[in-house]
Protein backbone atom coordinates (compact mmCIF):
# COMPACT_ATOMS: atom_id res chain seq x y z
CA UNK A 1 0.00 0.00 0.00
CA UNK A 2 1.50 3.30 -1.01
CA UNK A 3 -0.18 6.64 -1.52
CA UNK A 4 0.30 9.22 -4.25
CA UNK A 5 -1.13 12.72 -3.75
CA UNK A 6 -1.66 14.50 -7.08
CA UNK A 7 -1.56 18.22 -6.39
CA UNK A 8 -2.78 21.25 -8.31
CA UNK A 9 -1.04 24.45 -9.26
CA UNK A 10 -2.22 27.05 -11.77
CA UNK A 11 1.19 28.36 -12.78
CA UNK A 12 0.95 31.30 -10.39
CA UNK A 13 -0.06 29.75 -7.09
CA UNK A 14 -0.75 26.45 -5.40
CA UNK A 15 -4.39 25.64 -5.02
CA UNK A 16 -4.88 25.80 -1.25
CA UNK A 17 -6.72 22.48 -1.38
CA UNK A 18 -3.46 20.85 -2.51
CA UNK A 19 -2.07 21.26 1.01
CA UNK A 20 -5.24 19.83 2.51
CA UNK A 21 -4.85 16.80 0.25
CA UNK A 22 -1.19 16.45 1.19
CA UNK A 23 -2.07 16.58 4.91
CA UNK A 24 -4.76 13.94 4.35
CA UNK A 25 -2.33 11.72 2.43
CA UNK A 26 0.23 11.94 5.22
CA UNK A 27 -2.40 11.16 7.84
CA UNK A 28 -3.80 8.14 5.96
CA UNK A 29 -0.26 6.89 5.28
CA UNK A 30 0.49 7.00 9.03
CA UNK A 31 -2.69 5.09 9.80
CA UNK A 32 -1.92 2.45 7.17
CA UNK A 33 1.76 2.38 8.04
CA UNK A 34 2.77 3.12 4.48
CA UNK A 35 4.56 5.77 2.45
CA UNK A 36 3.29 8.79 0.59
CA UNK A 37 4.62 10.52 -2.49
CA UNK A 38 3.34 13.57 -4.32
CA UNK A 39 3.04 14.50 -7.98
CA UNK A 40 2.67 17.85 -9.71
CA UNK A 41 2.09 18.27 -13.43
CA UNK A 42 4.02 21.26 -14.72
CA UNK A 43 6.62 21.72 -17.46
CA UNK A 44 9.77 23.21 -15.93
CA UNK A 45 8.12 23.09 -12.52
CA UNK A 46 11.35 22.51 -10.57
CA UNK A 47 10.69 25.28 -8.09
CA UNK A 48 7.18 23.96 -7.37
CA UNK A 49 8.51 20.45 -6.91
CA UNK A 50 11.18 21.94 -4.66
CA UNK A 51 8.49 23.37 -2.38
CA UNK A 52 6.88 19.95 -2.09
CA UNK A 53 10.26 18.37 -1.39
CA UNK A 54 10.37 20.27 1.91
CA UNK A 55 7.47 18.21 3.23
CA UNK A 56 7.56 14.68 4.60
CA UNK A 57 7.26 12.53 1.50
CA UNK A 58 8.88 9.45 0.03
CA UNK A 59 9.38 11.25 -3.27
CA UNK A 60 8.13 14.13 -5.38
CA UNK A 61 7.32 13.40 -9.02
CA UNK A 62 7.49 16.34 -11.37
CA UNK A 63 5.49 15.40 -14.46
CA UNK A 64 7.19 17.44 -17.13
CA UNK A 65 6.21 17.74 -20.80
CA UNK A 66 5.70 20.75 -23.06
CA UNK A 67 2.22 19.50 -24.01
CA UNK A 68 1.21 19.87 -20.36
CA UNK A 69 1.82 23.62 -20.20
CA UNK A 70 -1.90 24.19 -20.46
CA UNK A 71 -4.38 21.98 -18.71
CA UNK A 72 -6.27 19.52 -20.93
CA UNK A 73 -8.17 16.48 -19.75
CA UNK A 74 -6.55 14.34 -22.47
CA UNK A 75 -2.99 15.47 -21.63
CA UNK A 76 -3.30 15.17 -17.86
CA UNK A 77 -5.11 11.85 -18.00
CA UNK A 78 -2.58 10.27 -20.38
CA UNK A 79 0.43 11.60 -18.45
CA UNK A 80 -0.85 10.54 -15.04
CA UNK A 81 -1.79 7.13 -16.33
CA UNK A 82 1.82 6.61 -17.40
CA UNK A 83 3.03 7.84 -14.00
CA UNK A 84 0.71 5.37 -12.27
CA UNK A 85 2.05 2.53 -14.40
CA UNK A 86 5.59 3.53 -13.45
CA UNK A 87 5.09 4.27 -9.70
CA UNK A 88 2.29 1.75 -9.02
CA UNK A 89 0.62 3.55 -6.12
CA UNK A 90 -2.31 1.79 -4.52
CA UNK A 91 -4.25 4.86 -3.44
CA UNK A 92 -4.26 8.19 -5.28
CA UNK A 93 -5.65 11.29 -3.59
CA UNK A 94 -6.68 14.53 -5.33
CA UNK A 95 -8.19 17.84 -4.22
CA UNK A 96 -11.81 17.98 -5.44
CA UNK A 97 -11.28 21.01 -7.68
CA UNK A 98 -13.05 21.81 -10.95
CA UNK A 99 -9.92 20.63 -12.79
CA UNK A 100 -9.84 17.29 -10.96
CA UNK A 101 -13.57 16.86 -11.65
CA UNK A 102 -12.71 17.32 -15.34
CA UNK A 103 -10.01 14.64 -15.67
CA UNK A 104 -10.15 12.24 -12.69
CA UNK A 105 -13.19 10.23 -13.87
CA UNK A 106 -11.50 9.84 -17.27
CA UNK A 107 -8.20 8.74 -15.75
CA UNK A 108 -9.86 6.22 -13.42
CA UNK A 109 -12.04 4.85 -16.23
CA UNK A 110 -9.02 4.40 -18.49
CA UNK A 111 -7.76 1.96 -15.84
CA UNK A 112 -11.18 0.32 -15.38
CA UNK A 113 -11.78 2.00 -12.01
CA UNK A 114 -14.35 4.33 -10.47
CA UNK A 115 -13.19 7.14 -8.19
CA UNK A 116 -14.69 8.15 -4.87
CA UNK A 117 -15.18 11.86 -5.50
CA UNK A 118 -15.78 14.69 -3.02
CA UNK A 119 -15.02 12.69 0.16
CA UNK A 120 -15.45 14.58 3.45
CA UNK A 121 -13.69 12.17 5.83
CA UNK A 122 -12.18 8.71 6.08
CA UNK A 123 -11.42 5.97 8.54
CA UNK A 124 -9.26 2.90 8.34
CA UNK A 125 -11.10 -0.37 8.88
CA UNK A 126 -9.36 -3.77 8.66
CA UNK A 127 -6.43 -2.23 6.84
CA UNK A 128 -8.63 -0.64 4.19
CA UNK A 129 -9.77 2.95 3.81
CA UNK A 130 -13.47 3.73 4.12
CA UNK A 131 -14.41 7.17 2.78
CA UNK A 132 -17.42 9.21 3.84
CA UNK A 133 -19.34 10.99 1.08
CA UNK A 134 -22.49 13.06 1.03
CA UNK A 135 -25.58 12.01 -0.89
CA UNK A 136 -28.68 14.10 -1.60
CA UNK A 137 -26.92 17.46 -1.33
CA UNK A 138 -25.63 16.72 2.18
CA UNK A 139 -28.86 15.34 3.63
CA UNK A 140 -27.43 11.82 3.92
CA UNK A 141 -23.90 10.51 4.53
CA UNK A 142 -22.57 7.37 2.87
CA UNK A 143 -19.66 5.09 3.82
CA UNK A 144 -18.03 3.75 0.67
CA UNK A 145 -15.14 1.39 -0.09
CA UNK A 146 -13.25 0.47 -3.22
CA UNK A 147 -14.07 -2.70 -5.09
CA UNK A 148 -11.42 -4.62 -6.97
CA UNK A 149 -7.67 -4.25 -7.19
CA UNK A 150 -5.55 -1.13 -6.85
CA UNK A 151 -5.04 1.55 -7.95
CA UNK A 152 -7.86 3.30 -6.14
CA UNK A 153 -8.78 6.95 -6.59
CA UNK A 154 -10.39 9.50 -4.27
CA UNK A 155 -10.85 13.28 -4.31
CA UNK A 156 -11.30 15.29 -1.11
CA UNK A 157 -13.76 18.11 -0.49
CA UNK A 158 -12.47 21.62 0.22
CA UNK A 159 -12.02 22.09 3.95
CA UNK A 160 -12.33 18.39 4.81
CA UNK A 161 -8.68 18.24 5.97
CA UNK A 162 -6.48 20.89 7.49
CA UNK A 163 -3.73 22.41 5.36
CA UNK A 164 -1.76 23.50 8.45
CA UNK A 165 -1.19 19.87 9.41
CA UNK A 166 1.25 19.12 6.59
CA UNK A 167 4.34 17.51 8.13
CA UNK A 168 7.67 18.98 7.08
CA UNK A 169 10.63 16.92 6.00
CA UNK A 170 12.97 16.42 3.09
CA UNK A 171 12.41 14.36 -0.01
CA UNK A 172 13.86 13.93 -3.47
CA UNK A 173 12.44 15.21 -6.72
CA UNK A 174 12.21 12.83 -9.66
CA UNK A 175 11.37 14.18 -13.07
CA UNK A 176 8.93 12.03 -14.98
CA UNK A 177 8.65 12.62 -18.72
CA UNK A 178 5.52 11.05 -20.16
CA UNK A 179 5.29 10.05 -23.79
CA UNK A 180 2.74 12.41 -25.34
CA UNK A 181 1.93 13.45 -28.87
CA UNK A 182 0.04 16.59 -29.84
CA UNK A 183 -2.52 14.57 -31.82
CA UNK A 184 -3.64 12.81 -28.62
CA UNK A 185 -4.91 16.08 -27.18
CA UNK A 186 -8.27 16.78 -28.78
CA UNK A 187 -9.53 19.76 -26.79
CA UNK A 188 -7.91 23.12 -27.42
CA UNK A 189 -7.97 25.47 -24.42
CA UNK A 190 -8.31 29.15 -25.34
CA UNK A 191 -8.30 32.34 -23.31
CA UNK A 192 -9.16 32.57 -19.60
CA UNK A 193 -11.39 35.48 -18.67
CA UNK A 194 -13.69 37.00 -16.10
CA UNK A 195 -17.13 38.25 -17.18
CA UNK A 196 -16.76 41.76 -15.83
CA UNK A 197 -15.20 43.63 -12.99
CA UNK A 198 -17.30 42.90 -9.96
CA UNK A 199 -19.42 45.93 -9.14
CA UNK A 200 -20.56 44.41 -5.87
CA UNK A 201 -17.86 43.42 -3.42
CA UNK A 202 -19.64 41.16 -0.98
CA UNK A 203 -16.34 40.30 0.71
CA UNK A 204 -16.27 43.75 2.31
CA UNK A 205 -19.80 43.50 3.77
CA UNK A 206 -20.20 43.28 7.55
CA UNK A 207 -23.68 41.82 7.34
CA UNK A 208 -25.12 39.74 4.50
CA UNK A 209 -28.68 38.57 3.97
CA UNK A 210 -28.60 35.73 1.49
CA UNK A 211 -31.60 34.22 -0.25
CA UNK A 212 -32.14 30.79 -1.78
CA UNK A 213 -34.73 28.73 -3.58
CA UNK A 214 -37.16 28.97 -0.66
CA UNK A 215 -38.13 32.42 -1.92
CA UNK A 216 -40.03 30.60 -4.71
CA UNK A 217 -40.32 33.46 -7.25
CA UNK A 218 -38.74 36.74 -8.31
CA UNK A 219 -41.76 38.69 -7.08
CA UNK A 220 -40.95 37.65 -3.49
CA UNK A 221 -37.43 39.11 -3.42
CA UNK A 222 -38.65 42.31 -1.65
CA UNK A 223 -39.38 40.18 1.44
CA UNK A 224 -35.62 39.68 1.95
CA UNK A 225 -34.69 43.10 0.58
CA UNK A 226 -36.62 44.66 3.47
CA UNK A 227 -34.73 42.51 5.97
CA UNK A 228 -31.41 43.49 4.37
CA UNK A 229 -32.36 47.17 4.55
CA UNK A 230 -33.34 46.89 8.22
CA UNK A 231 -30.00 45.24 9.01
CA UNK A 232 -27.94 47.57 6.83
CA UNK A 233 -26.83 44.41 5.01
CA UNK A 234 -25.78 43.53 1.47
CA UNK A 235 -28.22 41.24 -0.31
CA UNK A 236 -26.70 38.02 -1.69
CA UNK A 237 -28.03 34.75 -3.09
CA UNK A 238 -27.31 31.11 -3.71
CA UNK A 239 -26.64 30.02 -7.26
CA UNK A 240 -30.17 29.02 -8.40
CA UNK A 241 -31.46 32.54 -7.68
CA UNK A 242 -28.78 34.08 -9.92
CA UNK A 243 -29.23 31.37 -12.58
CA UNK A 244 -32.90 32.31 -12.73
CA UNK A 245 -31.94 35.98 -13.11
CA UNK A 246 -33.82 37.03 -9.94
CA UNK A 247 -30.64 38.69 -8.65
CA UNK A 248 -27.51 39.52 -10.67
CA UNK A 249 -24.68 36.95 -10.83
CA UNK A 250 -22.36 39.32 -8.98
CA UNK A 251 -24.44 38.75 -5.83
CA UNK A 252 -23.79 35.01 -5.81
CA UNK A 253 -22.10 33.41 -2.80
CA UNK A 254 -20.51 29.98 -3.26
CA UNK A 255 -17.88 28.03 -5.15
CA UNK A 256 -18.70 29.73 -8.45
CA UNK A 257 -19.40 33.12 -6.83
CA UNK A 258 -17.83 35.07 -4.01
CA UNK A 259 -16.37 33.72 -0.77
CA UNK A 260 -17.49 35.84 2.16
CA UNK A 261 -16.86 35.98 5.90
CA UNK A 262 -19.04 38.75 7.37
CA UNK A 263 -19.74 39.11 11.08
CA UNK A 264 -23.37 38.13 10.41
CA UNK A 265 -24.69 35.94 7.58
CA UNK A 266 -28.44 35.39 7.43
CA UNK A 267 -29.36 32.49 5.11
CA UNK A 268 -33.02 32.66 4.11
CA UNK A 269 -34.56 29.70 2.31
CA UNK A 270 -31.12 28.26 1.51
CA UNK A 271 -30.81 24.51 1.97
CA UNK A 272 -27.03 24.62 2.16
CA UNK A 273 -25.61 22.57 -0.72
CA UNK A 274 -21.84 22.26 -0.34
CA UNK A 275 -21.28 24.62 -3.29
CA UNK A 276 -22.94 27.34 -1.21
CA UNK A 277 -21.42 26.39 2.15
CA UNK A 278 -17.83 26.69 0.92
CA UNK A 279 -18.54 30.34 0.12
CA UNK A 280 -19.87 31.35 3.54
CA UNK A 281 -18.83 28.96 6.27
CA UNK A 282 -16.10 31.35 7.43
CA UNK A 283 -18.79 33.82 8.58
CA UNK A 284 -18.58 34.70 12.27
CA UNK A 285 -22.26 34.27 13.09
CA UNK A 286 -24.63 32.36 10.84
CA UNK A 287 -28.42 32.49 11.06
CA UNK A 288 -30.51 30.01 9.07
CA UNK A 289 -34.22 30.28 8.33
CA UNK A 290 -35.59 27.26 6.50
CA UNK A 291 -38.71 25.15 6.53
CA UNK A 292 -36.79 21.87 6.32
CA UNK A 293 -35.35 20.91 9.73
CA UNK A 294 -32.90 18.55 7.99
CA UNK A 295 -31.46 21.19 5.65
CA UNK A 296 -27.62 21.06 5.79
CA UNK A 297 -27.52 24.84 6.35
CA UNK A 298 -28.44 24.16 9.99
CA UNK A 299 -25.13 22.29 10.36
CA UNK A 300 -23.11 25.45 9.91
CA UNK A 301 -25.57 27.83 11.62
CA UNK A 302 -25.25 29.26 15.12
CA UNK A 303 -28.93 30.23 15.32
CA UNK A 304 -31.84 28.81 13.44
CA UNK A 305 -35.56 29.09 12.95
CA UNK A 306 -37.38 26.17 11.35
CA UNK A 307 -40.38 27.71 9.66
CA UNK A 308 -42.00 29.42 6.73
CA UNK A 309 -39.76 32.27 5.66
CA UNK A 310 -42.79 34.27 4.48
CA UNK A 311 -43.99 34.38 8.08
CA UNK A 312 -40.65 34.51 9.87
CA UNK A 313 -38.77 37.11 7.80
CA UNK A 314 -41.37 39.92 8.11
CA UNK A 315 -41.48 39.35 11.88
CA UNK A 316 -37.70 39.42 12.06
CA UNK A 317 -37.60 42.59 9.95
CA UNK A 318 -40.15 44.26 12.26
CA UNK A 319 -38.23 43.20 15.39
CA UNK A 320 -34.98 44.63 14.00
CA UNK A 321 -36.62 47.88 12.87
CA UNK A 322 -37.98 48.24 16.40
CA UNK A 323 -34.58 47.99 18.11
CA UNK A 324 -32.94 50.23 15.51
CA UNK A 325 -35.49 52.93 16.30
CA UNK A 326 -35.09 52.69 20.05
Amino acid at each position, binding site marked *: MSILAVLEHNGRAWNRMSWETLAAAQQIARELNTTVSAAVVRPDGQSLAGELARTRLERVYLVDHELLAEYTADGFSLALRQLIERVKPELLLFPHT*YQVRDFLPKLATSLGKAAVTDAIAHRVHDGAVVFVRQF*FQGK*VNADVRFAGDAPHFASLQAGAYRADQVAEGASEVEIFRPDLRAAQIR*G*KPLELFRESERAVDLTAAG*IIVSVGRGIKEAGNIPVVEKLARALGAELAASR*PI*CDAGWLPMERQVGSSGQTVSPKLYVAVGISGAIQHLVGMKGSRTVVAINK*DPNAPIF*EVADYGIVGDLFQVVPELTAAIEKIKKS
Partner: protein
Amino acid sequence: MKIVVAIKQTPARDSQLRIAGTGKWIEEADLAYEVNEPDAYALEEALQLKEKHGGEVIALSAGPARVAQTIREALAKGADRAIHIEEDMGALDPLAAARLLAAAVKSEAPDLVLTGLQSDDLGYGQTGVILAELLGLPHATIVMKVEVDGGAIRVKRELEDGWFQQMEMPLPALLTIQSGIGKLRYATLMGIKKAKTKEVKRLTAADLGVAAESAGVVLDRIYTPERSKRIQLFTGTPQEAAAQLVEKLRFEARVL
Protein backbone atom coordinates in the same frame (compact mmCIF):
# COMPACT_ATOMS: atom_id res chain seq x y z
CA MET B 1 -27.06 17.39 -35.71
CA LYS B 2 -27.93 14.33 -33.67
CA ILE B 3 -27.85 14.95 -29.91
CA VAL B 4 -28.28 12.43 -27.12
CA VAL B 5 -29.07 14.01 -23.76
CA ALA B 6 -28.70 11.82 -20.68
CA ILE B 7 -31.13 12.80 -17.93
CA LYS B 8 -31.66 11.36 -14.47
CA GLN B 9 -34.70 11.29 -12.26
CA THR B 10 -33.96 12.24 -8.65
CA PRO B 11 -36.10 12.78 -5.53
CA ALA B 12 -37.77 16.21 -5.47
CA ARG B 13 -35.57 18.78 -3.78
CA ASP B 14 -37.65 19.36 -0.68
CA SER B 15 -38.14 15.62 -0.02
CA GLN B 16 -37.95 14.41 3.55
CA LEU B 17 -35.67 11.41 3.21
CA ARG B 18 -35.86 8.30 5.36
CA ILE B 19 -33.15 5.64 5.40
CA ALA B 20 -34.47 2.24 4.26
CA GLY B 21 -34.30 -0.74 6.62
CA THR B 22 -31.39 -2.18 4.64
CA GLY B 23 -29.30 0.91 5.53
CA LYS B 24 -28.15 0.94 1.90
CA TRP B 25 -30.67 3.27 0.32
CA ILE B 26 -33.56 5.57 1.08
CA GLU B 27 -37.22 4.62 1.44
CA GLU B 28 -38.58 5.32 -2.03
CA ALA B 29 -42.25 4.44 -1.59
CA ASP B 30 -43.64 7.86 -0.62
CA LEU B 31 -41.20 10.10 -2.49
CA ALA B 32 -41.99 12.53 -5.29
CA TYR B 33 -39.46 12.59 -8.15
CA GLU B 34 -38.37 15.18 -10.68
CA VAL B 35 -35.67 15.59 -13.31
CA ASN B 36 -32.20 16.24 -11.88
CA GLU B 37 -31.87 20.01 -12.25
CA PRO B 38 -28.56 20.23 -14.20
CA ASP B 39 -29.99 17.60 -16.58
CA ALA B 40 -33.00 19.84 -17.21
CA TYR B 41 -30.53 22.48 -18.41
CA ALA B 42 -28.71 19.89 -20.56
CA LEU B 43 -32.04 19.06 -22.22
CA GLU B 44 -32.75 22.78 -22.70
CA GLU B 45 -29.37 23.28 -24.39
CA ALA B 46 -29.96 20.25 -26.63
CA LEU B 47 -33.34 21.64 -27.72
CA GLN B 48 -31.86 25.08 -28.42
CA LEU B 49 -29.03 23.57 -30.48
CA LYS B 50 -31.58 21.62 -32.48
CA GLU B 51 -33.60 24.78 -33.09
CA LYS B 52 -30.47 26.53 -34.41
CA HIS B 53 -28.86 23.73 -36.37
CA GLY B 54 -31.63 21.20 -37.04
CA GLY B 55 -31.38 17.51 -36.34
CA GLU B 56 -32.70 15.30 -33.61
CA VAL B 57 -32.71 15.17 -29.80
CA ILE B 58 -32.85 11.79 -28.11
CA ALA B 59 -33.54 11.71 -24.37
CA LEU B 60 -31.82 8.86 -22.53
CA SER B 61 -32.62 7.88 -18.96
CA ALA B 62 -31.91 4.87 -16.74
CA GLY B 63 -34.08 3.91 -13.80
CA PRO B 64 -37.20 1.97 -12.80
CA ALA B 65 -40.70 2.36 -14.31
CA ARG B 66 -41.31 5.75 -12.61
CA VAL B 67 -38.65 7.27 -14.89
CA ALA B 68 -41.24 7.08 -17.72
CA GLN B 69 -42.74 10.30 -16.29
CA THR B 70 -39.44 12.22 -16.62
CA ILE B 71 -39.03 10.87 -20.15
CA ARG B 72 -42.58 11.96 -21.07
CA GLU B 73 -41.77 15.46 -19.83
CA ALA B 74 -38.63 15.58 -21.97
CA LEU B 75 -40.64 14.47 -25.01
CA ALA B 76 -43.32 17.08 -24.23
CA LYS B 77 -40.67 19.79 -24.12
CA GLY B 78 -39.45 18.80 -27.56
CA ALA B 79 -37.17 15.75 -27.52
CA ASP B 80 -37.89 13.68 -30.63
CA ARG B 81 -37.65 10.23 -29.09
CA ALA B 82 -36.31 8.51 -26.01
CA ILE B 83 -34.47 5.49 -24.67
CA HIS B 84 -35.41 4.15 -21.26
CA ILE B 85 -32.94 1.73 -19.67
CA GLU B 86 -35.28 0.04 -17.24
CA GLU B 87 -33.13 -0.88 -14.26
CA ASP B 88 -33.24 -0.03 -10.57
CA MET B 89 -30.18 2.22 -10.30
CA GLY B 90 -30.20 3.02 -6.56
CA ALA B 91 -26.65 3.79 -5.44
CA LEU B 92 -25.04 2.11 -8.46
CA ASP B 93 -21.55 3.59 -8.88
CA PRO B 94 -20.96 6.06 -11.71
CA LEU B 95 -18.81 3.62 -13.73
CA ALA B 96 -21.59 1.05 -13.78
CA ALA B 97 -24.19 3.72 -14.61
CA ALA B 98 -22.04 5.10 -17.43
CA ARG B 99 -21.45 1.62 -18.87
CA LEU B 100 -25.22 1.16 -19.21
CA LEU B 101 -25.60 4.59 -20.82
CA ALA B 102 -22.61 4.05 -23.12
CA ALA B 103 -24.03 0.79 -24.43
CA ALA B 104 -27.26 2.58 -25.35
CA VAL B 105 -25.53 5.64 -26.89
CA LYS B 106 -23.07 3.69 -29.00
CA SER B 107 -25.56 2.42 -31.57
CA GLU B 108 -26.99 5.94 -32.00
CA ALA B 109 -23.57 7.39 -33.01
CA PRO B 110 -24.60 10.96 -32.07
CA ASP B 111 -22.69 14.15 -32.95
CA LEU B 112 -23.05 15.43 -29.42
CA VAL B 113 -23.82 13.90 -26.03
CA LEU B 114 -25.01 16.24 -23.28
CA THR B 115 -25.68 15.66 -19.61
CA GLY B 116 -25.87 17.67 -16.40
CA LEU B 117 -22.62 18.28 -14.55
CA GLN B 118 -23.72 16.23 -11.53
CA SER B 119 -26.72 14.59 -9.94
CA ASP B 120 -28.51 16.00 -6.93
CA ASP B 121 -28.80 12.53 -5.38
CA LEU B 122 -25.42 10.74 -5.49
CA GLY B 123 -23.45 13.82 -6.52
CA TYR B 124 -20.40 11.98 -7.83
CA GLY B 125 -20.18 14.39 -10.77
CA GLN B 126 -18.52 11.70 -12.87
CA THR B 127 -21.06 10.03 -15.14
CA GLY B 128 -20.62 12.40 -18.10
CA VAL B 129 -16.83 12.28 -18.12
CA ILE B 130 -16.80 8.49 -17.74
CA LEU B 131 -19.31 8.21 -20.58
CA ALA B 132 -16.99 10.29 -22.79
CA GLU B 133 -14.04 8.01 -22.00
CA LEU B 134 -16.08 4.85 -22.65
CA LEU B 135 -17.28 6.27 -25.99
CA GLY B 136 -13.82 7.54 -26.92
CA LEU B 137 -15.08 11.15 -27.17
CA PRO B 138 -13.39 14.39 -26.15
CA HIS B 139 -15.28 16.23 -23.41
CA ALA B 140 -15.67 19.51 -21.58
CA THR B 141 -17.26 19.92 -18.15
CA ILE B 142 -19.28 22.65 -16.42
CA VAL B 143 -20.23 24.24 -19.73
CA MET B 144 -22.07 27.60 -19.82
CA LYS B 145 -22.26 28.19 -23.59
CA VAL B 146 -22.05 26.06 -26.74
CA GLU B 147 -21.37 27.29 -30.28
CA VAL B 148 -21.32 24.88 -33.21
CA ASP B 149 -19.06 25.61 -36.15
CA GLY B 150 -19.20 22.85 -38.76
CA GLY B 151 -17.42 19.81 -37.43
CA ALA B 152 -16.23 21.49 -34.25
CA ILE B 153 -17.62 23.22 -31.19
CA ARG B 154 -16.48 26.11 -29.06
CA VAL B 155 -17.62 26.08 -25.45
CA LYS B 156 -17.38 28.38 -22.45
CA ARG B 157 -16.32 26.46 -19.36
CA GLU B 158 -16.88 27.72 -15.85
CA LEU B 159 -13.80 27.63 -13.63
CA GLU B 160 -13.53 28.49 -9.95
CA ASP B 161 -13.69 31.92 -8.40
CA GLY B 162 -15.51 33.73 -11.22
CA TRP B 163 -13.15 32.64 -14.03
CA PHE B 164 -14.17 31.16 -17.36
CA GLN B 165 -12.32 29.57 -20.24
CA GLN B 166 -13.10 29.15 -23.92
CA MET B 167 -12.30 25.78 -25.41
CA GLU B 168 -12.59 24.19 -28.83
CA MET B 169 -12.92 20.54 -29.74
CA PRO B 170 -13.91 18.42 -32.72
CA LEU B 171 -17.25 16.62 -32.96
CA PRO B 172 -18.44 14.13 -31.87
CA ALA B 173 -17.98 15.24 -28.27
CA LEU B 174 -19.57 15.10 -24.83
CA LEU B 175 -20.39 18.12 -22.68
CA THR B 176 -21.55 18.33 -19.07
CA ILE B 177 -23.84 21.33 -18.69
CA GLN B 178 -23.97 23.74 -15.77
CA SER B 179 -27.32 24.89 -14.38
CA GLY B 180 -28.30 28.31 -15.67
CA ILE B 181 -26.94 27.87 -19.23
CA GLY B 182 -30.33 28.90 -20.62
CA LYS B 183 -33.86 29.63 -19.55
CA LEU B 184 -35.82 26.43 -18.99
CA ARG B 185 -38.90 26.07 -21.15
CA TYR B 186 -42.25 24.69 -20.13
CA ALA B 187 -44.01 21.99 -22.10
CA THR B 188 -46.84 23.34 -24.22
CA LEU B 189 -50.24 21.65 -24.43
CA MET B 190 -49.40 20.73 -28.00
CA GLY B 191 -46.08 19.32 -26.82
CA ILE B 192 -47.75 17.20 -24.17
CA LYS B 193 -50.19 15.87 -26.77
CA LYS B 194 -47.45 15.08 -29.27
CA ALA B 195 -45.30 13.36 -26.62
CA LYS B 196 -47.81 10.50 -26.49
CA THR B 197 -47.05 9.56 -30.07
CA LYS B 198 -43.25 9.69 -29.79
CA GLU B 199 -41.10 6.58 -29.67
CA VAL B 200 -39.70 5.35 -26.35
CA LYS B 201 -37.33 2.43 -26.73
CA ARG B 202 -37.22 0.29 -23.58
CA LEU B 203 -34.08 -1.70 -22.86
CA THR B 204 -32.75 -3.65 -19.91
CA ALA B 205 -29.15 -4.14 -18.81
CA ALA B 206 -29.40 -7.67 -20.23
CA ASP B 207 -30.51 -6.29 -23.62
CA LEU B 208 -27.44 -4.05 -23.57
CA GLY B 209 -25.15 -6.88 -22.46
CA VAL B 210 -23.95 -4.89 -19.43
CA ALA B 211 -24.08 -5.90 -15.76
CA ALA B 212 -26.04 -3.44 -13.60
CA GLU B 213 -23.71 -3.74 -10.64
CA SER B 214 -21.18 -1.41 -9.06
CA ALA B 215 -17.76 -1.89 -10.56
CA GLY B 216 -15.47 0.35 -8.54
CA VAL B 217 -17.16 1.70 -5.44
CA VAL B 218 -19.04 -0.37 -2.86
CA LEU B 219 -21.61 1.29 -0.63
CA ASP B 220 -21.40 0.06 2.97
CA ARG B 221 -24.25 2.07 4.45
CA ILE B 222 -25.99 5.42 4.39
CA TYR B 223 -27.05 7.34 7.48
CA THR B 224 -28.23 10.73 8.66
CA PRO B 225 -25.23 12.93 9.48
CA GLU B 226 -24.87 13.97 13.10
CA ARG B 227 -26.03 17.50 13.63
CA SER B 228 -23.65 19.91 15.24
CA LYS B 229 -24.57 20.60 18.84
CA ARG B 230 -23.82 24.28 18.79
CA ILE B 231 -26.89 25.50 16.91
CA GLN B 232 -29.63 27.16 18.94
CA LEU B 233 -33.08 26.73 17.42
CA PHE B 234 -35.90 29.11 18.27
CA THR B 235 -39.45 27.87 18.34
CA GLY B 236 -42.92 29.23 19.01
CA THR B 237 -44.85 31.57 16.74
CA PRO B 238 -42.85 33.36 14.03
CA GLN B 239 -43.08 36.52 16.16
CA GLU B 240 -41.73 34.76 19.28
CA ALA B 241 -38.95 33.01 17.38
CA ALA B 242 -37.91 36.30 15.71
CA ALA B 243 -37.85 38.07 19.08
CA GLN B 244 -35.65 35.36 20.65
CA LEU B 245 -33.30 35.46 17.67
CA VAL B 246 -32.91 39.25 17.82
CA GLU B 247 -32.23 39.01 21.56
CA LYS B 248 -29.40 36.52 20.94
CA LEU B 249 -27.97 38.51 18.04
CA ARG B 250 -27.83 41.61 20.25
CA PHE B 251 -26.60 40.28 23.54
CA GLU B 252 -24.87 36.96 22.83
CA ALA B 253 -23.40 37.25 19.32
CA ARG B 254 -23.29 41.08 19.65
CA VAL B 255 -23.67 41.62 15.94
CA LEU B 256 -26.56 44.10 16.03
